[in-house]
């Protein structure tokens, strides 16, 4: 028996229609969140949300105390509905027992008789269900006439709904915070007007601070990555006696990294005992050169420097991720010298992006927990207060189920929701500071007077 329109279907349709403006509002909140990027932390939003929910719960507890009579009335209602459900569930159980004993007497092969018996008991089940619903409605009608509109019921209905709305809005806003807007100007384009550098005008932080090996005058690398690379190059210096100078600029004079390498070696003498390593990258020129000093050529051959560039530098630079490229290049060089496993570049992400992803996952988990926790709390309150009327009590599902007619009635109440969408990161990125410089130093600056023999490898991407 097909029923074209039922209350349930109307509810679904109206729900779908209501979802459209809700989604529009949530989208607007997400967009607003992107504009706030970097100023408010998603964790702060989650904390504020949790506080709001806590306030609702505390107020609810107070309301329960204030309207103690309403609590008793809800308890009576719940008991009444439960008793009715118990009575009809017992009748359905008896029907089921009778059905089983009847079909056990059937001779096998009598499929049509079984079908008729099923249909017969199905109709009896529907009769029981109608009786259950009728008796529940009568009870509720009498109960409402007796108690009227209860403040507590209204309070909890609205509170639970508001709680969900707050969580949805907060999570959408946080999602906007986690997704920074695409810059109107690409990072590459922002560097286009930078000056060109050569060995005479390039700042060399190592001259004044022995812990600084990276020259980043155009701020292509983030300060965090510069610090990480300095740590690795410091280890290279201490463990293998390799004094390094890593230079990354937007433009190199005459687009000639070899000349710049030569000039750096001649001007500053990178490398004690000729074990220097100079790396020059022209980010906007798409050119690079890796130049080991005379005595280092045996340990870091032309082919090895080429492989380092091919495996780490070039793929990252092509993906416009200079942070990844330079960091992995430094790591790869260290791993090569220490004969350890070479680092695997599984995903071209800068450390800032990785940090964003980790924090984004944390924020996502937090809001998921909030949503689930509020859903569970709302469900328990709903049951206790009898907010969902009949659906809080459960009539047994149809044990004589057939593929026509309405299916079994399932228990209702509030189910757990879920947060839509995902997070790609939730950390506000700190702005790049100026190159190198600063920091405490364990050693005074200056280079060791090394020279270059022409070895190494370079190229373009």
């Amino acid at each position, binding site marked *: 028996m097909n029923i074209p329109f039922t209350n349930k279907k109307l509810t679904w349709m109206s729900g779908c229609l209501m979802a459209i403006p809700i989604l529009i509002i949530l989208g607007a909140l997400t967009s607003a969140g992107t504009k706030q990027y970097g100023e408010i932390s998603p964790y702060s939003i989650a904390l504020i949300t949790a506080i709001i929910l806590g306030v609702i719960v505390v107020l609810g507890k107070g309301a329960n105390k204030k309207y103690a009579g309403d609590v008793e009335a809800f308890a009576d209602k719940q008991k009444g509905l439960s008793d009715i459900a118990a009575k009809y569930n017992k009748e359905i159980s008896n029907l089921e027992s009778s059905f089983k004993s009847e079909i056990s007497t059937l001779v096998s092969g009598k499929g049509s008789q079984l079908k008729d018996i099923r249909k017969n008991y199905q109709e009896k089940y529907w009769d029981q269900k109608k009786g259950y619903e009728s008796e529940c409605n009568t009870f509720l009608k009498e109960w409402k006439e007796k108690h009227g509109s209860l403040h507590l019921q209204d309070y909890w209905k609205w509170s639970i709904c508001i709680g969900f709305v707050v969580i949805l809005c907060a999570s959408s806003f946080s999602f906007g915070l986690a997704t920074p807007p695409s810059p109107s100007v690409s990072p590459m384009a922002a560097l286009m007007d930078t000056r060109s550098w050569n060995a005479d005008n390039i700042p060399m932080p190592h001259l004044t601070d022995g812990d600084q090996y990276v020259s980043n005058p155009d701020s292509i690398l983030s300060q965090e990555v510069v610090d990480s690379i300095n740590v690795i190059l410091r280890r290279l210096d201490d463990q293998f006696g390799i004094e390094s100078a890593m230079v990354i600029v937007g433009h190199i004079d005459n687009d000639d990294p*070899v000349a710049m390498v*030569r000039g750096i070696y001649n001007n500053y003498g990178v490398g004690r005992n000729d074990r220097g390593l100079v790396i020059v990258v022209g980010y906007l020129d798409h050119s690079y050169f890796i130049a080991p000093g005379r005595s280092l050529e045996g340990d870091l051959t*032309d*082919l090895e420097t*080429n492989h380092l560039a091919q495996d780490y530098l070039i793929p990252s630079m092509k993906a416009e991720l200079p942070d990844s490229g330079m960091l992995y290049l430094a790591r790869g060089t260290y791993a090569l010298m220490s004969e350890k496993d070479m680092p695997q570049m599984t995903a071209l992400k800068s450390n800032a992006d990785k940090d964003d992803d980790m924090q984004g996952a944390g924020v996502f988990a937090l809001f998921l927990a909030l949503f689930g926790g509020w859903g569970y709390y709302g469900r328990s309150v709903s049951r206790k207060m009898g907010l969902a009327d009949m659906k809080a009590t459960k009539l047994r599902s149809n044990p004589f189920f057939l593929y026509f007619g309405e299916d079994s009635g399932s228990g209702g109440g509030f189910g757990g929701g879920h947060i839509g969408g995902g997070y790609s990161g939730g950390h506000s990125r700190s702005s790049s500071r100026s190159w190198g410089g600063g920091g405490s130093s364990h050693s005074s600056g200056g280079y060791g007077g090394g020279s*270059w*023999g*022409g*070895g*190494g*490898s370079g190229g373009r991407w």
Partner: protein
Amino acid sequence: MSNNVTKTGGLSKNTMIIGAVVAILVIWGISAYNGMVKVEEEATTAWAGVQSAYQRRADLIPNLVNVVKGYAAHEKETLEGVVNARAKATSINVDADDLTPEKLQQFQQAQGELSQALGRLIAVSEAYPDLKANENFMDLQKQLEGTENRINEARNTFNTAVQTYNVKIRKFPNTLLAGIFGFDKMAKFEADAAAQKAPEVQF
């Protein structure tokens, strides 16, 4: 007759002055000689670096020829050209003590011809995608690039050392001693005329 000569310990003043001048000249002479020896040694050491760099290139060529032969055996003329040029270049040994301008030019010309032959070989290999994709070939190309850089640096270092030496021996009064002790002007690398021509590629 008055005698203006003061006698001190048996030595006359004139004698002392003459002695002092001679001593100064000797000290200067020794210092200048040692200085010229030092810069000459630096120049000869730089020449050794140049020869080492060229030899490094020559050592790569047999491997390169073998790899190319595996994919382009019929490019016989080009391959033989490289082999012959290598043989000629490696046969010219120039001693640092006998580095005359003529011998240096001869050396440079031979190496220039080898560069031309190599350039033709690399250009020809562009027509063979399988060869270009061969890992050994790519590695050899990279090594050749590195070697060319080393040759450039070695030549620059040599030229700088020779310039320093030539300036030292030609400055007055060093030039007086240079002639006496046989410090001759050294030749430098000049721009290779052959390198100005692009290699001719015939497919």
